[in-house]
């Protein structure tokens, strides 16, 4: 069935190039994964849902699925902030600590000081921006590695939270209604969603659009990809980095609000695990720790994968420690896959 085309091959070199381009199926898969880094977590999530659904009937129950989304809402929100920072080749170990500090500020200013709820939320936003500015200042001006900066500010924010709150939890019942509004539920097609989950999804849409459609978004990627190239292209690297830490701080304020709604309380001892869980979601979601590569949609998938694994293993009757074990395996596999994908044909 071979048809001879009228145009002969132009030169031996072109033929050779064509031959070299004929890649193996495996490297072709790798090229696709490289171009669309959210594909691999999407596959993992679908497989996990199918497997856990087969293992236990209750897994695909609407009430259970609703529970998973609620369990994911807070870490999913924090993971957006974490994604922005990791895209710039940074890392933030303090996101959970900052979020808890913000939640205590919101709760204390409204309950103890009697300020209006809106003002309390605004002060929470201010604290988030201040924490982001502090991290960003240390990273951009003192040129300290983000890992070290946020390792230090992690302790600082944890201490500040306990000092400020006196270690006392504020119950949701004492707060104005607006503060716990993120915990309110509504029903779509038999599945209950909380306002917090909706807000998280909205945040993903907004941040994804900003990263894709604005010059700032491109600059975030360029700075994470190669800061020197970005600088030579006329981008102010420090300004982009600082704006990323500020944006992260604002997102953490939203996370604090969702957290208060989810737990119906503001507790200074909550959220310690969120610092690392947010990184887990980002990494499983296919965003490279070396910066410049990844999407927030991948992060959402990563957060859902962790939620699905924890929930599914728990329904399968496994010890909670095995959930932790499984998440550990997921992280290592995700990073290994990322390394493999990055070895694209040169």
């Amino acid at each position, binding site marked *: 069935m071979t048809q001879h085309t009228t145009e002969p091959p132009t030169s031996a070199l072109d033929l050779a190039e064509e031959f070299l381009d004929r890649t193996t199926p495996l490297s072709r898969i790798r090229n696709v994964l490289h171009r669309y880094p959210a594909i691999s977590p999407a596959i993992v999530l679908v497989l996990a849902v199918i497997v856990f659904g087969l293992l236990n009937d209750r897994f695909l129950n609407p009430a259970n699925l609703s529970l998973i989304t609620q369990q994911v809402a807070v870490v999913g929100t924090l993971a957006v902030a974490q994604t922005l920072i990791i895209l710039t080749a940074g890392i933030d170990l303090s996101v959970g600590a900052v979020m808890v500090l913000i939640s205590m500020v919101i709760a204390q200013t409204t309950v103890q000081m009697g300020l209006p709820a809106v003002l309390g939320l605004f002060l929470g936003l201010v604290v988030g921006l201040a924490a982001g500015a502090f991290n960003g200042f240390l990273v951009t001006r003192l040129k300290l590695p983000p890992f070290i900066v946020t390792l230090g500010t992690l302790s600082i924010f944890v201490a500040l939270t306990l000092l400020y709150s006196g270690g006392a939890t504020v119950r949701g019942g004492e707060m104005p209604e607006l503060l716990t509004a993120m915990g309110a539920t509504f029903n779509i097609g038999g599945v209950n969603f909380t306002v917090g989950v909706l807000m998280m999804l909205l945040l993903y849409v907004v941040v994804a659009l900003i990263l894709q459609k604005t*010059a700032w978004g491109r600059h975030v*990627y*360029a700075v994470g990809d190669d800061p020197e190239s970005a600088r030579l*292209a006329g981008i102010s690297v420090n300004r982009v980095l600082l704006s990323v830490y500020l944006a992260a701080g604002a997102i953490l304020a939203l996370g604090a609000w969702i957290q208060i709604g989810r737990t119906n309380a503001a507790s200074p001892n909550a959220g310690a695990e969120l610092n690392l869980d947010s990184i887990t979601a980002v990494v499983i979601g296919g965003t490279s720790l070396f910066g*410049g590569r990844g999407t927030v949609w991948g992060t959402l998938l990563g957060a859902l994968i962790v939620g699905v694994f924890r929930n599914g293993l728990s329904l399968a009757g496994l010890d909670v420690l095995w959930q932790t074990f499984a998440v550990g395996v997921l992280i290592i596999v995700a990073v290994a896959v990322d390394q493999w994908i990055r070895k694209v044909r040169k």
Partner: protein
Amino acid sequence: MTIATDAAGQTPAAGSAETRTPILRARRLVKTFGRVVGLDGVSLELFPGEVLAVIGDNGAGKSTLIKCLTGAEIPDEGEIFLDGRPVHFKRPQDARAAGIETVYQNLAVSPALDVASNLFLGREERKKGILGSVFRVVDQKGMRQKARDELTALGISTLQDVTVPVENLSGGQRQAVAVARAAAFGSKVVVLDEPTAALGVRESNQVLELIRNLRERGIPVILISHNMPHVFDVADRIHVQRLGKRAATIRPETHTMTDAVAIMTGAARE
């Protein structure tokens, strides 16, 4: 007058050059680093529509000279004129704003971003209307079209898919992207720092072709290179730098590569 002796003594067979006005002119640049003298009173003229090569041994002051012209270093003494007007660049951005575009040796492209995004990196165009002005949405479609037009105009036919991430391109194609970016924005001067250093024979030839295309479009080029055959292939004039000074400015028609090397190493004087 210093300029006259400069030109008369060091631009042989360039009788017409003296009557033309240089688009870029450096006069007696001095730059010291502590006790090391990088530039010791160097002058340089770049005329419209020409390719000027800058050659010299390591440490001769090539890079320092180029850095002074492109704003990466500030000269201690001397003057730089662009279009006859004195300019004082404090940062590379200043030089770019004035119309001097530099393609650095390390290419300065962002590997994960696609070709069009790289061409417009740092000067993205926004959509018209409220989407652009309020929501600051970039005009992806328009930028891609302009990127395609620009690459076609430069004769880079192998690079029509501007949505490919730059890391998937060959070394020559990446260089082409970097050059296209330098030439794309109404620049007055394009400076290329060792553009063929990391490339194979075939890709080097593509880049040399690209330089000729730039000249045809009337964009003057300063080419820094170690590669004598490449220099003699495309350059109209060759500025030879030696020990922080301009040893000579020669022409490929009147001098051989051996002459150039001799001047470069101090074995011969022009």
